[in-house]
């Protein structure tokens, strides 16, 4: 299994997928930075951090997961690499598990990068423009908790997107799924059923109602684990045509 993970990591070298993982959190951080510069009235650190988290959860995270899973899957689909990879003496479900773990690892890294990026952007803005003052305590621990919850809740969305991306040779299906999911999440944020909607679940980490947040994140995390098992069972038996 470690070998397969190592192989998946080696494939990322010089890949677009890796570039995306740097670019996505950097985009959010850059946006936070510019917004801080433009503000005339003083804001709190807490508000500043929440701002970044909202951008991440609503839009950047689902779109990045969509793009990342498509890139990682197309790496195999485009050259028909399954012909070779799945003819090797390894259990198929392990190949797919390695892929899933690497994708989840990348999403985790992006969350960490976002965490550092947002606070870094705030500090940099304060330093560059003396007028900018972020007040109150820097909510390091709180922010880390929120991002971790978002990450755990995103498991279902990641697995659903990866499944679609691996299952279909064309990238159109997973792309439409991801865009539609993200759009629906933005359009129907307040919906009661949002706690069951994979693309909306991470947003619930910011919900004021702790009960709602807990339900949503459990659905996302445990539903994600169940979906992962189902994906491995399905793809492990899927024919390579």
């Amino acid at each position, binding site marked *: 299994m470690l*070998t397969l993970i190592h192989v998946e990591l080696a494939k990322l070298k010089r890949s677009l997928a890796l570039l995306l993982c740097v670019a996505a959190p950097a985009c959010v951080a850059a946006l936070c930075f510019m917004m801080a510069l433009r503000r005339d009235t003083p804001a709190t650190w807490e508000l500043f951090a929440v701002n970044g988290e909202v951008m991440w959860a609503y839009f950047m995270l689902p779109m990045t997961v969509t793009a990342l899973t498509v890139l990682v899957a197309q790496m195999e689909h485009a050259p*028909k690499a399954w*012909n070779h990879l*799945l003819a090797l003496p*390894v259990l198929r479900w392990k190949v797919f598990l390695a892929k899933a773990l690497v994708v989840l690892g990348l999403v985790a890294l992006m969350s960490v990068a976002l965490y550092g990026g947002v606070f870094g952007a705030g500090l940099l803005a304060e330093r560059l423009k003396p007028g900018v003052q972020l007040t109150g305590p820097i909510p390091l621990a709180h922010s880390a908790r929120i991002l971790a919850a978002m990450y755990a809740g995103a498991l279902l969305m990641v697995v659903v997107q990866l499944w679609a991306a691996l299952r279909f040779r064309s990238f159109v299906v997973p792309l439409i799924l991801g865009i539609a999911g993200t759009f629906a999440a933005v359009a129907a944020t307040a919906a009661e059923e949002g706690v069951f909607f994979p693309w909306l679940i991470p947003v619930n980490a910011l919900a004021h109602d702790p009960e709602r947040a807990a339900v949503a994140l459990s659905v996302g995390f445990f539903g994600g684990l169940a979906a992962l098992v189902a994906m491995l069972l399905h793809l492990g038996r899927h024919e390579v045509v």
Partner: protein
Amino acid sequence: MATAIESTGLTKRFGARAAVDGVDLAAPRGGVYGFLGRNGAGKTTTIRLILGLLRPSAGEVRVFGEPVGARRLKTAAMIGSLVETPALYDHLTGRENLDLTRRILALPKTEIDRVLEVVDLAGAAGRRVGGYSLGMRQRLGLARALLGGPRLLVLDEPTNGLDPDGIRDMRRLIRSLPEQGGVTVFVSSHLLAEVEQTADHVGLMHEGRLLAQTSLRELKGGPAELEIEVDEAERAAALLAQAGLSARREDAALRVRLPAEWTAAAVNRLLVGADLAVQRLAPRQRSLEDVYLDLTGARAPLNA
């Protein structure tokens, strides 16, 4: 006969259509098995079944006696394969591509240098595959199939996209493998000449069915043929037909299949007796093409 690949009633349907239909393969161990068929004959589908990439709709395949369906890990460990276009990662170098498979097969790093040497690609191994020519990709794909020295090599149209030099090299390499290490090579092709020059055994696929399977020598044996150059080819053909001989036109010459009771001299007598000028009359070994055409009925004899 101990077989490297053996299938019984192997069938693969896509929807209602059978791409592979009741195929009984028996590829002997050692030597080169040429798997011949035109586009869409079912070669690649059969190869996918051998590799366990597809599950048969009916029948089964065995590799060195092990069923592919139930023991895929075991059979896969004995096979090196190259299916259709070599599936390579463009953003990685040649060496990095090989290294992925090397890791999975748990081989030492020296193995990469060995296979690069075999396909004569050591010089380009540090370059990204995205910049490789088709021929270089094909050779890298072959190198990857050779990793670990598998007992069975399954190659799907390995000369696709190669220039004449490349084709010659590939042929030489395919021929040399069984001689050096007792490897069995199962190689598909739609080119008769290629199979004729490399294979010991031949399987002829046509519309999903295995029409013939035998040693190349036997397959080409069959009844003798005469090549005749004569003016007024049409009249000559008609005359031969009257005598019960079927002739077909091949370029400027006529080809006649000789049943046992006929001799070349008798044919010559018949033609000369009818006032035809026979320029040349030569016995000719049947080519694989003749066999193929006979079996598939792709081209009817001239006077049929």
